């Protein structure tokens, strides 16, 4: 039976959960050996991503990708963090700010598969659509 990426990630999470910092490297080393034995090292990136999802979900952590025209100030970053925290009922929010001049202004917030597009470029696209139809 083939073990899925999600199953590997879940197993790894269960293995390191509640373990001390000292014990973790040894657990990881054993896990990598199992991956190598099962010819699954190629999927290690996906397994780590899935592990992060499980870890974040369990610990109420939300990762948000914010696209803006300029680098966000600390004040704005904190405001966005609060917004995301409230919207997703999160304990902690990890923000990743991506500078994208093409959005022309405003922000685009991406959390998981959800996208909140409050950019100027989106409003321009909407305007063009309305005028064309």
């Amino acid at each position: 039976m083939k073990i899925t990426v999600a199953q590997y990630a879940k197993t790894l999470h269960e293995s390191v959960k509640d373990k001390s910092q000292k014990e973790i490297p040894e657990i990881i080393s054993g896990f990598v050996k199992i991956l190598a034995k099962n010819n699954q090292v190629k999927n290690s990136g996906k397994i780590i991503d899935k592990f992060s999802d499980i870890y974040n979900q369990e610990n109420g952590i939300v990762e948000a990708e914010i696209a803006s025209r300029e680098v966000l100030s600390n004040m704005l970053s904190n405001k966005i963090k609060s917004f995301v925290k409230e919207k997703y009922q999160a304990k902690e929010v990890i923000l990743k700010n991506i500078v994208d001049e093409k959005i022309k202004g405003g922000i685009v917030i991406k959390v998981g598969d959800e996208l909140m597009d409050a950019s100027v470029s989106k409003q321009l696209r909407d305007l063009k659509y309305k005028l064309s139809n």
Partner: protein
Amino acid sequence: MNERTGKIEKGLKDAEDAQNKLAEMEKKEKDVLTKAKEEGQKIITAAEVTAQKNKEDLLVETKQQAEKLLTDAGKKIEEEKNKMIGEVRSEVAGLVVMATEKILDEKIDVSKDKELIKKSIN
């Protein structure tokens, strides 16, 4: 005398028979002619009916083709019109957006951008 009388009577009888045969043949000929005329008339009538039907069918078909041509032409004109309107609209929309974009590029400075961001998360 008797022999002569017999000859005469036979002659008369032969003449009468010949007359009867002629009459019978004439009747037969007349019957054949009548029948031929009737058959001929039937053929003519059938031909006329077929010709009339063909004429009507052709007329209906021609009418249908003409109607289809008109409908198709109407549709094509409508499609072309809509396509043209769509193209013009799209062109105008593109120009409006381009102009708006240019204005916004000049108008949205750092502080305006901050305001926009704040508005979107409030």
